[in-house]
């Protein structure tokens, strides 16, 4: 048995023990969906970090920096700064006025059924797209990390899928929270060790380290090139590079605060004050992590080199290969296990947010008009839908296969969160005149604009030469109609516009009358859901 596989099994054993422990404490809806609202601020902060820092950030950003230098570090910045929107605008009102989902806040003063139906659709879209991207990435990655152990892409996808279903079905939000906490601590520890090792390679001299970044040598089409990797522009080139950067920034800044799996985390704490403090905890961890991507990414570029990484699995292997180069096979196995833990914690968070939205918004409130027919029905429906969501994600990931281009699904998830969810949450908290038509229009326009612009953008539309075959070919063989991979710069204004026009073109006095209730609730916490005892 290979060392990475042993470490994977140790992690799985620990998380299953946590799930068993949590399963005895997850009776009742508030316990199952919101961990009884008993999570402490530091725990929730660490869990938010664990929920958020996906393999795309750990392996993906390290890889982009290793291959394209400074431009990759721009991702790191946006990924942290986006939490200011969560902190200043979203976390506290959501905790004060909601119960389990973002739709709770929207439904206060609007007609609940259409608003919840649209919000559930948007939540499920974001969660499943993001999950499929994670699953395809996970399958390819685990197969690569466990090369030679007989575990291929399909087995890896099925394994990851089954584990996330087990965490969510048996352990609910409490187990998910602790899986995320364990993962975040492992990720921080591994990244910190790796950073120290990189600096020790450069004799703890920043001058030497940044000097080495100044001339990174690699081969491009057979030619040896030497580049300053701190120089911007290696990834984002004219004519559309600058716009792409701004559009990406918009999607991060406005999308993070609309990601359902992040939003549900704020229902697990006792009150708004704890929610606020937990965001700050999360920012401390997330920021420290992303600053350390400097060492991971540039370390891989200077110590391992693009050529070697390219021959041994590609960009995503940058951080594990750096670990191997600096400290040998056991440390490589440890970093691989962290990557695996990272994937599991994120997909578990996505699964629970999708199932909560389906059970609470769609089943109980849209189909059954807000009443449970039998006690415990909502939790039972959530458990069943976890199987369905997990099964669908496994099936789609296997059908797409390991070579499918799925990076656009992450861009899509952020675009939908920023263009559909965020405008509607913000208007319902801050705009008295906002109403049902506006909310439905905002969600629909944001959703359609994001999906539409990605469909006609360069991720899915492009002219390939005949030599490109299979999954690597663009879906539509034509010149892209929209030049940017990130649609935020256009889809976010469209989402806001849809919400504004829908509101102004309709009349709904009841939503205006009930605004005071939401205003007082969201700002003071009067009447907020209380923590329950286990």
């Amino acid at each position, binding site marked *: 048995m290979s060392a990475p596989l042993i470490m994977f099994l140790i992690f799985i054993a620990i998380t299953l023990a946590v799930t068993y422990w949590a399963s005895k404490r997850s009776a009742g809806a508030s316990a199952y969906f919101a961990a009884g609202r008993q999570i402490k601020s530091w725990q929730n902060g660490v869990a938010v970090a664990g929920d958020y820092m996906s393999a795309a950030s750990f392996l993906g950003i390290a890889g982009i920096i290793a291959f394209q230098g*400074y431009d990759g*570090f*721009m991702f*790191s*910045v*946006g990924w*942290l*700064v986006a*939490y*200011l*929107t969560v*902190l*200043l*605008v979203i976390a506290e009102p959501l905790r004060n006025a909601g119960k389990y989902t973002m739709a709770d806040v929207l439904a206060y003063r609007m007609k609940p059924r259409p608003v919840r139906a649209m919000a559930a659709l948007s939540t499920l879209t974001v969660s499943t797209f993001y999950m499929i991207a994670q699953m395809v990435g996970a399958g390819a990655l685990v197969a690569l990390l466990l090369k030679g152990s007989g575990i291929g892409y399909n087995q890896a996808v099925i394994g990851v899928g089954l584990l996330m279903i087990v965490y969510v079905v048996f352990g609910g939000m409490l187990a998910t929270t602790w899986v995320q906490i364990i993962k975040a601590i492992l990720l921080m520890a591994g990244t910190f060790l790796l950073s120290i090792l990189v600096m020790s390679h450069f004799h703890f001299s*920043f*001058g030497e380290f*940044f*000097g080495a*970044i*100044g001339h990174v040598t690699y081969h491009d089409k057979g030619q040896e090139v030497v580049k*300053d990797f*701190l*120089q*911007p*522009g290696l990834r*984002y080139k004219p004519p559309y*590079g*600058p*716009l792409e*950067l*701004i559009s*990406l*920034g918009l999607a991060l*800044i406005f999308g993070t605060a609309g990601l359902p799996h992040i939003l549900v985390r704020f229902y697990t704490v006792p009150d*708004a*004050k704890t929610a*606020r*403090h937990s*965001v*700050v905890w999360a*920012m*401390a961890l997330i*920021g420290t992590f*992303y*600053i350390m991507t400097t060492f991971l990414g540039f370390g891989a570029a200077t110590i391992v080199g693009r050529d070697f990484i390219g021959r041994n699995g590609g960009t995503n292997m940058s951080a594990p290969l750096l670990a191997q180069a600096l400290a040998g096979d056991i440390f490589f196995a440890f970093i691989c296990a962290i990557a695996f833990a990272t994937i599991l914690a994120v997909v578990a968070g996505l699964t629970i947010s999708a199932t909560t939205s389906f059970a609470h918004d769609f089943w109980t409130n849209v189909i059954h008009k807000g009443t449970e027919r039998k006690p415990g029905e909502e939790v039972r429906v959530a458990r069943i839908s976890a199987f369905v969501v997990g099964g669908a994600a496994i099936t789609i990931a296997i059908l797409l296969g390991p070579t499918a281009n799925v990076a656009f699904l992450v861009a899509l998830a952020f675009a939908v969160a920023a263009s559909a969810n965020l405008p509607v949450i913000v208007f319902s908290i801050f705009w008295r005149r906002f109403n049902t038509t506006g909310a439905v229009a905002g969600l629909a326009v944001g959703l359609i604009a994001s999906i539409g612009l990605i469909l006609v953008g360069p991720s899915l539309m492009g002219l390939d030469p005949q030599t490109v075959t299979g999954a690597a070919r663009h879906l539509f063989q034509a010149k892209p109609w929209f030049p940017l991979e990130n649609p935020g710069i256009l889809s976010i204004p469209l989402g806001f516009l849809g919400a504004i026009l829908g509101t102004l073109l309709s009349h709904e006095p009841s939503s205006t009358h*009930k605004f*005071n*209730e939401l*205003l*007082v*609730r969201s*700002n*003071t*916490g*009067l*009447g907020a859901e209380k923590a329950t005892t286990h």
Partner: protein
Amino acid sequence: MPDAVKPDKNGQTMWDRVAESEEFRDLMATKKIFIIPAFVFFLVYYFLLPILVGYAPQFMSIKVWGNVNLAYLFALSQFFMAWTIAGLYVKAGDDFDRISKDIIGKALDPERAKGDK
């Protein structure tokens, strides 16, 4: 909150009465004074980064210390900007909590509210 949504003789619910109270206006004013400038500042500061890197790459490539250029230092400063605003917000948040507690106390106990006036 038994009478929270039942309108009184003036057609006002408890929510309307709280929303129009002096304390609540005070809370909203206290929040706005911090949140709006902080949010605008962070948006401007953050979007300067992609704008400058995208449209003025030569300027951002100016080396400040050894090989370290303006682009990297400005990107790094964003982390400290975010942490600073978060820290200030937590401090300001103590005021929000204090006023909110007062509002909740009075809303749940109308007698106390009368006695205050």
